[in-house]
């Protein structure tokens, strides 16, 4: 049993490692592709060679970053099979489709036109080249769409039903999967975070040139494009962030409670702006959850339910149940306790076994009977694999602090972009040394915010791989923990080596600058 749990933890560690490395490279690709496309559009429209030089410079950095995103992406795709074998069968009917569509629709577009973008400058017409650059941006963002649809579906499984004959979930409505509100929000929120990251990257690198009094033209022009793009994206990011929080409140109340460190729910709950959590707090002890906190009254109720007086359930409410909530159909319901959910999950799992036995015996009456029991309790199927009610609580400190890092930095970036645009407009940016240095140091911060976002999304939803339907521990492959340990270490070493290489090459390329065409 412990060996089995070890596999779960190591598999999680390996997947988290791969996903976090992947997400170090992808957001820059998403945003920089558009920034390059804007620049090249200006070049084609004006015929000004300086813009071509600027485009090509950023393109070189894009190339250094791109390949490693591709490499880590391949690993992620196959890890669903290698490390999450049960998951792959249990929901492969729904989850596999977006991955395949991503390959057919997006990856080929990206890889085909990236070749034209890099090698086509002297081989194809200006317009064909420009179209290729735009198609690279479109392809990259389309691939983000499909993988985020898949991820959103795990957080909010829509458009499917469980088939006891095949012992898996099957898709019955593709549009419900594609256009689920969680999917749309997640897609828009995630890609706009990539745009913000790329904008800050471009501003930071350009600011360094201004500090070194080099490439003044390139730097100034790049900053203006990136700051405008960044400001629009950051505002949109805040808007979609609000949408995401609303969806979390509706669909994953435990994640919301963890994001807020909320143990005892109440009507008119405030939003914690900053706070320090009491260490080692257990859900059922009497400790105050916070050492200190500053909160805005009633705001969480409003953000989560669009009503200042709405009841927001806390961790303890979700475990003990008994509060009233409105379900997806708009009916008032009394919440079940975690223990009741676990009991009903076990009934569902047992009914699946009984259904199967009846099916083997050819007893259609019994099959019908067990099927109805299974369907009645299926909403809680995943709870059946849990034994302890407290296992539905994710890691609260990690979720809580990551959320604050993400949101706090997000608002800082809005102010930053606005300030940069203001200074650029006033022609004062070049001499404002402290602003330029700040811009350089914004680069690590935006990467931090970006990673924190994924921690909130993925740690906050534990223990679920598929919300309420499949817990992480029932999703793994049957392999030895030691095997996963070995591959984890190998991945960690190789990803880290590649990251170091990437950063070193990137810094060198920035130092070389665009003078000789970025080579």
């Amino acid at each position, binding site marked *: 049993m412990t060996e089995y749990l070890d596999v779960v933890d190591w598999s999680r560690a390996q997947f988290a490692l791969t996903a976090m490395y992947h997400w170090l490279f992808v957001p820059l690709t998403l945003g920089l592709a558009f920034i390059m496309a804007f620049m090249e559009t200006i070049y084609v429209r004006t015929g000004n060679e300086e813009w071509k030089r600027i485009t090509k410079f950023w393109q070189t950095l894009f190339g250094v970053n791109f390949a490693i995103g*591709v*490499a880590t992406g391949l690993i992620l*795709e196959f890890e*669903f099979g290698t490390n999450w*074998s*049960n998951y792959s069968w249990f929901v*492969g009917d*729904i989850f596999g489709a977006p991955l395949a569509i991503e390959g057919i629709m997006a990856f080929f577009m990206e890889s085909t036109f990236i070749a034209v973008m890099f090698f086509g400058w002297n081989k194809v017409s200006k317009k064909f080249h420009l179209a290729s650059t735009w198609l690279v941006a479109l392809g990259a963002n389309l691939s983000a769409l499909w993988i985020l649809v898949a991820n959103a579906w795990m957080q909010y499984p829509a458009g499917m039903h469980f088939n006891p004959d095949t012992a898996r979930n*099957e898709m019955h409505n593709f549009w419900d999967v594609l256009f689920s509100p969680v999917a749309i929000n997640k897609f828009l929120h995630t890609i706009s975070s990539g745009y913000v990251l790329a904008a800050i990257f471009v501003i930071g690198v350009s600011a360094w040139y201004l500090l070194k009094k080099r490439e003044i033209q390139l730097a100034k022009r790049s900053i203006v494009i990136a700051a405008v793009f960044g400001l629009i994206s950051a505002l949109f990011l805040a808007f979609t962030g609000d949408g995401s929080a609303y969806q979390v409140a509706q669909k994953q109340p435990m994640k919301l409670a963890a994001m807020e460190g909320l143990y005892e729910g109440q009507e008119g709950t405030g939003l914690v702006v900053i706070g320090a959590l009491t260490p080692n707090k257990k859900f059922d002890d009497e400790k105050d959850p916070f050492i200190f906190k500053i909160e805005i009254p009633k705001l969480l109720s409003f953000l989560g339910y669009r009503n200042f007086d709405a009841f927001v359930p806390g961790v303890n409410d979700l475990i003990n149940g008994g509060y009233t909530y409105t379900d997806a159909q708009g009916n008032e319901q009394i919440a079940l306790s975690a223990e009741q959910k676990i009991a009903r999950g076990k009934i569902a799992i047992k009914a699946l076994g009984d259904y199967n036995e009846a099916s083997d015996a050819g007893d259609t009456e019994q099959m019908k009977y067990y099927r109805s029991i299974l369907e009645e309790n299926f909403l809680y199927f995943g709870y059946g694999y849990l034994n302890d009610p407290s296992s539905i609580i994710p890691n609260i400190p990690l979720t809580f602090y990551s959320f604050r890092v993400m949101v706090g930095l997000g608002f800082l970036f809005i102010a930053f972009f606005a300030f940069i645009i203001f200074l650029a407009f006033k022609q004062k940016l070049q001499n404002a040394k402290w602003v330029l240095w700040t811009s350089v140091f914004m680069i690590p911060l935006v990467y931090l915010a970006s990673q924190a976002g994924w921690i909130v999304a993925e740690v906050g939803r534990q223990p679920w791989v598929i919300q309420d339907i499949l817990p992480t521990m029932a999703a793994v492959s049957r392999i030895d923990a030691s095997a996963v340990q070995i591959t984890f270490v190998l991945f960690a070493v190789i990803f880290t080596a590649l990251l170091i290489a990437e950063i070193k*090459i990137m810094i060198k390329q920035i130092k070389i600058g665009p003078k000789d065409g970025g080579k």
Partner: protein
Amino acid sequence: MIDSTYILLQQYWWFIISLLGALLVFLLFVQGGQTLIYTIGKTEIERKMLVNALGRKWEYTFTTLVTFGGAFFASFPLFYSTSFGGAYWVWMAILFCFIIQAISYEYRSKPNNFLGQRTYETFLFINGLLGTILLGTAVATFFTGSQFSVEKMNLTNIANPIISSWETPWHGLEAALNVHNLTLGLAVFFLARILGLLYFMNYINDEAILARAKKNLLYNAIPFLVFFLTFTVWLLLRDGFAVNPDTKEVFMQPYKYLHNLIEMPLVLITFLAGVVLVLLGIGRSLFTSCTKGIWFTGAGTILTVLSLFLIAGYNNTAYYPSTFNLQHSLTIFNSSSSKFTLSVMSIVSILIPFVATYIWFAWRAITRKKIDAEEMGTESHTY
């Protein structure tokens, strides 16, 4: 009740998977070429031309691999969960071979690249050597079988709900050490090298490279033919994993794959045409001044591999056989996605010809003019 639309969809998706697999093997010319950089390139500029010729195509191979995986997942998820989670070490080894490839082109000649140019070239070599052999051995298990079990009702065992189990502690290493599997692995390796050489001959405008490529073509064609013929003869003579269409029972049938070829004449014609084209491309390149052999051998590779995949899955055959328990073998019917999902995906697959068309145009636009030493000096983006 037999749902003939569902059966048609399952067969359609096996065809798509087979086609993607076939395209992937053709595109392994990139990997094959990577193992020849120091054999064919004797000077720095020659090697640069070779690397750049390959570097403009590597992403197609990579993307095809990713799409092959995604399409397999979406259409036959039970294969994905059983094989990848079970034959862990083989698949992980393949993955490692491909991570180190993805960055090597871009980083190889960049200043301050941390690991040094030779390391990235070694990465390319490893990818070409192990990537091809391991993919070949993994595909060979479609005919030789693996030791796994699939018990869907394990889901109801709360303490240990995992459905698919690998029944040997080797977790896939046993497949790589099986002689029959290795024969196909080595055939794929030498084929990839042949394709790489033919690609160099067609795309690089350099006398020395052309002469060396031609010479090496012979050295690689001979082992390829030996391994390929060994594998094929053995395949056609061996017992195969047949399925009784009425009872769904899996049983061993003598000469199953030979029967499949004879009972599906179109596949037989595809197979023979493929083999002839492969040989024609090699022969013309060896014995005439033709440099377009890649088109013949490439097309032949696609047809041959396609037909091999088809005889593995069609005509009541279990494509992923379990030697642990024959009745746990995967067929295209018991491992596929639901009818609804396959229908949705089939609609999406209408895009494939469109995708193929733009790839063709973009490929042509970039490759119209052959690579030469001069271009290496003037091109702004080189590897």
